[in-house]
């Protein structure tokens, strides 16, 4: 039996021929049943809302019970500055500490490295401290004499007394 003959036989005996289809009563009943089976949106939304609420509560509880992040110890503020021997204050240092009358050149502040400024400030402070102390064994400075004191990294304290014409150490 070839395909054409088979097709002809199938069409001759098509189960749908001679059937009138659904009658109006069947159609009406089926339509009503189908439309009644459509889910109500409110009923559909309730479980979804409940689920969302439960999920939110769980998330809040998890956040509340989570241990806080451990704060690392604050690094020392000068940690980034490498320890360097203190620079002895040059004789011109006191002049540098004097207030400047000239306005700084533009960009000068940026050019000077911050590390250098710190060293200078430390040296100035130390000089001022030493100058304020009156060393016991040192002879009193003569009036009009100029004294410069500083200490070396090894701890040796050096005092220069500048008088007019000669210098004593």
């Amino acid at each position: 039996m070839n395909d054409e003959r088979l097709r002809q036989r199938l069409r001759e005996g098509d189960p749908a021929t001679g059937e009138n289809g659904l009658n109006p009563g069947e159609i009406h009943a089926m339509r009503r049943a189908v439309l009644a089976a459509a889910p109500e949106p409110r009923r559909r939304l309730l479980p979804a809302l409940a689920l969302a609420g439960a999920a939110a509560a769980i998330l809040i509880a998890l956040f509340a019970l989570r241990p806080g992040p451990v704060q690392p110890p604050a690094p020392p503020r000068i940690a980034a500055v490498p320890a360097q021997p203190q620079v002895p204050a040059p004789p011109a240092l006191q002049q540098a500490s004097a207030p400047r009358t000239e306005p700084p050149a533009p960009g000068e502040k940026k050019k000077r490295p911050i590390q250098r400024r710190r060293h200078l400030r430390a040296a100035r402070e130390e000089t001022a401290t030493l100058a304020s102390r009156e060393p016991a064994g040192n002879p009193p400075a003569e009036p009009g004499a100029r004294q410069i004191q500083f200490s070396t990294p090894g701890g040796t304290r050096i005092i220069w007394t500048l008088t007019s014409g000669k210098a004593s150490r």
Partner: protein
Amino acid sequence: MDTSRQRTTTERLAGLFDAHHQRLFRLALRLSPDREEAHDLVQEAFLRAARQPASMPDGAEEAWLVRTLVNLCRDRYRRLGVRSRVHESLRREEETAHPEAAAVARATVRAALARLAPRRRAVIVLHELEGMPAREVARLLGIAEVTVRWHLLTARRELARVLLEDRR
């Protein structure tokens, strides 16, 4: 908003039912052994659409309904078993067979179709009796076109064998 959505869903379902119920019933008549089962299959397909309206893609509702109908046929076929299904079909046809030639031919074809697996039966019915091209059948059933062609080839062989046996 809920009410409007409900109304939209209901309107969509009503529109689908009005547009496709006759066509689906005709297909169900060709796939199932009797009218009652065809009626049940169509109703069940629409009930599934009503319960899961979101699962029907927009613009492809007809294909979804046809696939659902064929899947329902497969479920019933599996539940009842091939042998009992064929025997029951043949018995029903004998009971209701009319002496007229057309009725005999219908009974013979229906019995032959009942021997095919549901998907193969759907493929041969859609292609040979509803005149759909293989590509359209593939789209409706959600399978590859080459699979449709393979089902057609196998179904023709099986039907030819059954119809020749019946003639003897």
